């Protein structure tokens, strides 16, 4: 088990290397010159050239990549081209809203999607099932920003139940914190709920056909115990897997959601950094996201041993 964890952690290094290389390469190919943006509209070509040299942007690609990669191995993500702050500091300043948004979305989505999927499978073909599946299609096909603006219009502007924009840090109290996150989390969670509910339903449909479910019924157990203990525990692995894969969906969606709801998180930081061609910041955030994703998948693989006694590493 410990060996497995170590091996998996070591395996993240080449993954990170490849991710880093691609991000770095893509940004080098992208049009736009940070030196020109830093220098401003009034700068002369010589100024721009001077700034470019001071930022190290006049070096060949591989040299720049090597320098950057070397620093990262020492835990240094570099310095922003614009604020001159270390990238780690900038990320640290913005991580709480994004982390909060993700966790609240995860909690809402899982606690909603799994029961919905279970009930849909139990009542397969009936009205409940059709409603859940209809919602799933809708949740998946309507873009995040549309859902966001509609929810904000109805619940924040018309009904005035919740704030329309902004983020209240958790230090200011749990209630305002949660209130500021409900609409963004619902927005972000729509596609996620749809994904989890569909997979839950499909897996449960298969599990409910199994002999041991019949055995459970033959014992006189109630519907709830049969569905949520005997069946759901057997269906857990695909469901947990898709919850993990969906984290990628959340990371992508967070960028849009934070923009719609004006939340000062990593998503906003990413957008701003891209617009300003702030390479170190973009690279730092992308690395952080992919590292998180790799880590989440490791945790999911480890959770399999808890869910199914037949799986051992």
């Amino acid at each position, binding site marked *: 088990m410990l060996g497995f964890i170590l091996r998996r952690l070591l395996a993240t290094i080449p993954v990170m290397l490849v991710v880093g290389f691609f991000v770095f390469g893509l940004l080098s190919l992208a049009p736009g010159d940070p030196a020109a943006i830093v220098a401003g509209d009034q700068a002369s070509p010589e100024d721009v050239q001077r700034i470019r040299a001071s930022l190290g942007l006049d070096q060949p690609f591989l040299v720049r990549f090597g320098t950057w990669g070397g620093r990262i191995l020492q835990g240094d993500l570099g310095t922003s081209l614009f604020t001159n702050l270390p990238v780690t500091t900038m990320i640290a300043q913005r991580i709480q809203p994004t982390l909060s948004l993700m966790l609240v979305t995860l909690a809402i989505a899982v606690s909603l999607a799994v029961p919905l999927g279970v009930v849909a499978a139990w009542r397969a073909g009936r009205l409940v099932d059709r409603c859940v599946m209809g919602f799933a299609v809708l949740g998946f096909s309507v873009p995040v920003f549309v859902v966001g603006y509609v929810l904000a219009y109805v619940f924040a502007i018309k009904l005035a139940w919740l704030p329309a924009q902004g983020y209240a840090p958790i230090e200011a109290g749990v209630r305002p914190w949660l209130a500021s996150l409900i609409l963004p989390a619902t927005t972000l969670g729509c596609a996620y709920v749809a994904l989890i509910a569909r997979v839950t339903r499909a897996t449960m449909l298969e599990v409910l056909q*199994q*002999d*041991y479910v*019949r*055995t*459970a*019924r*033959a*014992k*006189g*157990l*109630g519907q709830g115990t049969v569905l949520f*203990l*005997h069946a759901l*525990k*057997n269906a857990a692995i695909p469901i947990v897997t898709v919850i993990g894969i969906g984290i990628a969906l959340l990371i992508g969606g967070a960028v849009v959601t934070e923009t719609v709801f004006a939340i000062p998180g990593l998503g906003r930081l990413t957008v701003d950094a891209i617009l300003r061609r702030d390479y170190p910041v973009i690279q730092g955030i992308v690395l952080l996201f992919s590292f998180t994703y790799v880590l989440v998948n490791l945790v999911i693989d480890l959770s399999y041993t808890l*869910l*199914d*006694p*037949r799986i051992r590493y």
Partner: protein
Amino acid sequence: MSLLSVENLQVHFRTPDGVNRAVDGVSFEIGSGETLAIVGESGCGKSVTSMSILRLLPEPQAQFAGAIRFEGRDLLALPDREMRKIRGNAISVVFQEPMTSLNPVLTVGRQIGETLRLHQGLDARQAEARAVEMLSLVGIPEPERRVHAYPHQMSGGMRQRVMIAIALACSPRLLIADEPTTALDVTIQAQILDLMRDLKHRVGAAIMLITHDLGVVAEVADRVMVMYAGRKVEEAAVADLFRTPRHPYTRGLMGAVPRLGVRAQGRAPGRLAEIPGMVPSLKTRIDGCVFAGRCPDAKDFCRLHAPALESKSPGHLAACHFAPKDARPA
């Protein structure tokens, strides 16, 4: 009063291409402590009959008629809440497939203890202690350790013992055993049968044994009911049935069992007698005798008129126009 009395049970399944008459007017009784074997080919309705007793069939698709009286109460009329108090408690079941009938992600102790907690209100610790007792009762070595094991850590025979432990945990009055030995090795089969016979005496449960294995029937049953195409075609005490099978289908079944030293009559040496033809589709209505299409003795009369189940000798029922009848009326 008998423990279980099934009266004119009909179970019809609605399918996209017509109604499947899986069980079509079957009546029988089981007394306390008695072992009734239900014999027949695959698809004759024996498993559907047993699953109807526990009402484990998908209910909107399966439509019931008739009555299933257990200790005087009609199970078909009970609300689901009441039915759940009977399942696993007064009536329990051992399924055919020990490899797939246990939940792979729960310990066997939990699976045995579950019924005890549900029906007898034991707490987790008491239930586990009882589970250990049950495991040793069904002959599993090191029950204290095995109670924490998962099904995949056990062999097929052991798992079937666990299934039996689950079924007997609440001392049921009726145990339904649906081909309990079919999936097991022959040597294990004998052990499981011995175990069931032994436990029957200890617990005093009546057994309804579903099987297509006449060897098993001869070994454990008191009475036998032969089913064909959703109907009961013959019923008798076990010795009586083996000595004088009245229905041509029963005779056909017995002829299809290999025996050492005995050659099937009128056949090439070494070949088993087979019943020609196929079981009729349960989706078309049959007016005459259901077995007429495959019966060596069938006359035109048989194809037009369904034979009634009648007493051919005391305690021996058969549904055949030409089955020999004892001179002395029953």
